C-alpha cells in the first residue's frame, strides 16, 4: 500500500473507514464530575485563547496510536491539555510533577 495516504490523512480522520461489523454501542450515562470539570477547563482555556479547540484536538491525536486507542475521551483531553500547556511553556514539567504529587497525597492515592 502507498504510504502517501498516511501522510495526507490525520490519524483521527476516520470518516468512512468503519465497517458494519463495528456496531455502535448505544447507551446514555452522566459524565463523572471530573469529566465535566475537564470539559469546563478546556472550554475556559479556549475562551482565554490559551489552548484552542483545534490545538486540543490535535493534541489528542499526537499521543500515539496505542494511547489513542486505550484512553477514554476525557483522559485524552486532559493529557492533550497538559501537553499543550507544557509545549507553550505555560506549565513546566516540575509544576506538574510537584502538583500531582501534592494532589495525590491529599486524596491518599499513590501515583
Amino acid at each position, binding site marked *: 500500500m502507498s504510504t502517501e495516504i498516511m501522510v495526507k490523512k490525520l490519524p483521527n480522520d476516520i470518516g468512512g473507514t*468503519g465497517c458494519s461489523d463495528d456496531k455502535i454501542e448505544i447507551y446514555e450515562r452522566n459524565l463523572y464530575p471530573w469529566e465535566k470539570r475537564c470539559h469546563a477547563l478546556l472550554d475556559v482555556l479556549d475562551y482565554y485563547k490559551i489552548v484552542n479547540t483545534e490545538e486540543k*484536538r490535535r493534541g489528542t491525536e499526537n499521543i500515539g496510536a496505542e494511547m489513542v486507542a486505550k484512553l477514554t475521551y476525557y483522559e485524552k483531553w486532559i493529557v492533550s491539555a497538559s501537553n499543550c500547556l507544557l509545549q507553550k511553556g505555560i506549565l513546566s514539567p516540575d509544576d506538574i510533577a510537584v502538583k500531582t504529587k501534592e494532589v495525590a497525597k491529599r486524596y491518599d492515592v499513590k501515583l
Partner: protein
Amino acid sequence: MTHNHPHDHTPIVQEEKPGYYEILEISVRELMIEKGRITADDIRKQIELLDSRSPVLGQQLVVRAWTDADFKKRLLENGNAAAEEMDITIYDDTAFTVLEDTPQLHHMIVCTLCSCYPRAVLGLPPDWYKSKQYRSRAVKEPRSVLAEFGTIIPDEIRIIINDSTANQRYMVLPLRPEGTEDFTKEELEKLVTRDTMIGVTIPKII
C-alpha cells in the same frame, strides 16, 4: 419548614479515590488558577453553563420553526441570529447551521474528526456520538447506522450527512409528522427528542 418527602438523605459521596487522570485534571486546573491564567469562578460558571444547555433548547427552535414560517426562514438562513432571537446564545462562538428535512430528504449529523456538536442547543453529546464506530461509519453507510438506531429511511428518500467541525455545527430540523395539525406547543415539543435533532431517528406520534 416541613420535611416529610420520601427521599434518601444519604449524602452523595465519591466512593472511589481519584485515578491518575482525575488527579491530572485537578492539578492542571489548580496550577492555572494559581498562575492567575484562569479563575475558580470561570470553571464554576462554565459548569453552570454546560448544565443549562439541553435538548430543550433545540426543541424550542424546532417547534417555533414548525409553527412560524417566517421564523423557520430566518432559522435556516442564519441559525446563530435566530437562536439569539430566542435568547439562546451560541456561547462557543461557532457557526450554527440548521438543516431542514423534507419528504425527499433526511439529514444526519456527525463529527468524523472528533466530537463537534451543537452543544449550545443540545447540551453535551452522548458517548455514541463520540465513538469510533459512529464517526467512522456514518458517512459511508448511513442506512446501516440508522438501522442500528431502529430507523429505516425508505430508499427513495435521500440521506445527507453533515460533518461538523470546530467552527461549524449543525442541527437537524426534522419533518413535522402528519396528523399533528391540532397539537399544542407542548405536545409538539414532546415529539422533538435529542436524537431527532441529530437525525438518527424521526419524530413519531406515540
